[in-house]
């Protein structure tokens, strides 16, 4: 049992924008085990696996497969070496049949010219039967439910002879029944001698089917453990624990008027799953409402509807006493909403435009900066210089393209823009993710200043440091619902918080999340 099939030693991966995604991680796989790779989103799990699968090349480190050092440059090489990966986003062609998807790229031929459809179906059936997958290989993939699509992905890997199977958060898209079924399949695969890497942040699932677990946090390895010897509490502590404690000067909270009122908010995702499931809360001027949670529990959808980016929701959102659906995004922003988006590169900035252009995308239309026809360029330049100075953006000049800056400085540009409009509500989604400590603490300090000045802030973060330090009230979101609410943030035990974040614990009584009925 304890034959080692794979070793990844001292793997280091730094992305071109300077983010250290994986730092000196060592990972070891025994033949025939189901090995969990555990960590929060952004902890570096996926990156580590992309290195193994040849999608990313590491800056440092070695991969030893079956005792020989290998250099995997592309997914194709990985496949040839017996490594298969089931991506979180399926790599399937919807209009083709299951069989066609399985044989794609290695189609059996007839008369050396035509695709041998019968053979393809036969081979696909064979492999499906061998592993007890119940699936009609003649059906088109687009007509299959998600659970079956995933099976097609697994079969695809097996058809290509995968001994090591990487599953990237396989249960994220599945219903509980489908998950149960998947686990049965995985156990069968294990019996047949396949080795499985199971990427997840769901502790109960890992307890259920994994033999060992390697835990990652912030790109670093936190050790490998026998799953039966470690408690979920210990795992969650290793996974989300606090690194450094930072203290900020915070004046006592001074609540003012209610600026946002949300009742029974529901959002249904494109796959028909409820992403937000009956959220209610109030937000008053002068406070920071922290929303903690492992990523992917509805935070993104919540931000989308609160900021007006989407109006596909049920329930009620009122902002400054007016129904949110009555606002256009510009009206919402002009009335004082600022939004620091989760992903600065897609929603936060236009990377091929310069700093100045990026700093005024939300207010170039205001009389302060624009005449009837032409922009007031002098004004814009003055203001840009001012903001660069104030927010300590490291750059050559305001003419530099934003894409050339480091992650932290890009974030500062985004924050400078959002904060320069004198906002009354700030929705900050992961405002300090992936940026250096200095920039992060600068941004946090700013958030507190705004709160003290009477601004209402929603802070969404997977970073426990951040939410614990900044929040006046803290709600934990799990699967689209609040699993717990804390009015006294100072007294929260982080292990306790971890339990709420991972859904191990949940309160039905959410006292303090709404102020008045």
């Amino acid at each position, binding site marked *: 049992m304890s034959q080692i099939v794979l070793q990844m030693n001292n793997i280091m991966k730094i992305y071109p924008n300077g983010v250290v995604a994986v730092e000196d991680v060592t990972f070891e796989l025994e033949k025939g085990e189901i090995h969990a790779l555990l960590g929060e989103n952004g902890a570096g799990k996926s990156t580590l696996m992309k290195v193994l699968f040849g999608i990313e090349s590491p800056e440092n480190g070695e991969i030893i497969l079956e005792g020989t050092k290998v250099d995997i440059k592309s*997914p194709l090489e990985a496949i040839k070496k017996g490594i298969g990966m089931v991506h979180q986003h399926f790599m399937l*062609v*919807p209009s083709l049949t299951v069989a066609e998807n399985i044989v*794609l790229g290695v*189609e059996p031929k007839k008369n050396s010219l*035509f695709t041998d*459809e019968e053979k393809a179906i036969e081979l696909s059936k064979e492999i499906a039967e061998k592993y007890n997958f119940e699936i009609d290989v003649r059906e088109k993939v687009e007509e299959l439910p998600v659970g079956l699509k995933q099976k097609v992905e697994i079969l695809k890997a097996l058809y290509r002879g995968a001994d090591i199977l990487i599953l990237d958060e396989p249960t994220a898209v599945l219903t509980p029944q489908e998950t149960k079924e998947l686990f049965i399949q995985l156990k069968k695969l294990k019996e047949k001698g396949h080795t499985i890497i199971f990427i997840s942040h769901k502790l109960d699932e890992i307890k259920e089917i994994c033999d060992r677990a390697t835990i990652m946090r912030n790109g670093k390895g936190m050790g490998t453990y026998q799953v039966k010897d470690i408690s979920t509490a210990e795992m969650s502590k290793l996974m989300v624990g606090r690194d450094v404690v930072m203290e900020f000067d915070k004046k006592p909270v001074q609540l003012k008027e209610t600026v946002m009122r949300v009742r029974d908010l529901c959002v249904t995702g494109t796959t028909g799953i409820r992403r937000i499931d009956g959220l209610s809360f109030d937000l008053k001027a002068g406070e920071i409402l922290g929303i903690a949670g492992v990523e992917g529990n509805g935070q993104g959808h919540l931000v989308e509807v609160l900021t007006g980016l989407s109006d596909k929701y049920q329930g009620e959102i009122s902002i400054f006493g007016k129904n949110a659906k009555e606002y256009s995004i510009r009206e919402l922003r002009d009335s004082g909403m600022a939004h620091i988006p989760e992903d600065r590169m897609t929603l936060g900035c236009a990377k091929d435009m310069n700093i100045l252009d990026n700093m005024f995308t939300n207010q170039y239309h205001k009389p302060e900066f624009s005449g009837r026809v032409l922009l007031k360029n002098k004004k814009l330049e003055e203001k840009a210089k001012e903001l660069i100075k104030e927010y300590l953006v490291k750059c050559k000049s305001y003419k530099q393209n934003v894409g050339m800056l480091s992650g932290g400085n890009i974030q500062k540009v985004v924050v400078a823009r959002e904060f320069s409009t004198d906002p009354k509500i700030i929705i900050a989604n992961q405002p300090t993710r992936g940026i250096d400590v200095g920039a992060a603490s600068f941004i946090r300090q700013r958030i507190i200043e705004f709160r003290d000045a009477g601004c209402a802030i929603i802070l969404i973060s997977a970073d426990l440091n951040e939410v614990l330090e900044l929040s006046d009230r803290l709600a934990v979101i799990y699967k689209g619902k609040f699993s717990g609410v804390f009015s006294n943030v100072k007294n929260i035990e982080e292990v306790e918080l971890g339990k709420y974040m991972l859904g191990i614990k949940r309160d039905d009584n959410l006292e303090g999340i709404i102020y008045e009925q």
Partner: protein
Amino acid sequence: MIVDAILSPEFLNAALRATTPILFAALASAIAAKSGVINMALEGILLFTALFGVIFSSAFQSAWLGLLVTMVMGGLIGFLLAFFVLRLKTDAILAAIAINLIADGATILILLAVSGDRGISSSINSIIIPRITLPIIENIPFIGAVLSNQNILTYVSLIMVVLVHIFLYKTPLGLQIRAVGENKDAAESVGISSDKIRYISLTISGVLASMGGFFLSGGYMTRFTTGMSAGRGFIALAASAMGGNTPIGSFLVSLLFGGAQAISNILQLGTLPHELVQMLPYATTLIGLGLYSYSKMKKRQRLTGK
């Protein structure tokens, strides 16, 4: 009166003839689109190859040899478009517009250089592909009059519908083309080179279109005249899009547009102002596309409304 005319075998015979160049180009568009690239250069390819057809058939004094070389040239232009798009990373639409604009000017220049004329290739003794009568079929009433006595290339275009269908749906390469067009990442994740597939698709697309181009000046007409593609490349794009980029669908919609072209040809002999009549094929395309988009929108609404 018009209805009578439309249902006459003579008209349907003419409609099939008018469909031929559109059909070749629509099949060309379908293959390119299936691989995920819109081949908007079809118009330019039609025009170029219409001229090349005249030149090469005259040079070899053989219509078939001329056709063969023209097909190679069409393939080359398709390959060139692929090179711009895949290697040099030009926008596919911009590269195509460039090819179309060059075609406008270059064909006149080449024509002038070869024949000394800038409007029509009368002085070039080009050879055209002949019409043939189909034994047995020609004796069937009505159907014989419609199908028989067509240009050989018209029959080839109909056979091409079947061949392209088999190619796309029954061969490994066809499967890979469809996979690349639909989900490039999925295809690449199993080791298919999407660039290679697209080079192949666009080259084949160029070859198919060149057969339509050759037909224009060496069958449909007997001479090359400047600008003679007259928007057929764009009509073909619409035809293949409305036909769901399948060969059969492209064929059916091409028939509709070919029919409109034939009606316009007949009506020009009548009393209506000919500018109005000439608009017919284009107006049909516009209305057709409008109806198609509308039905798609309705379908989408039904799906999302659920």
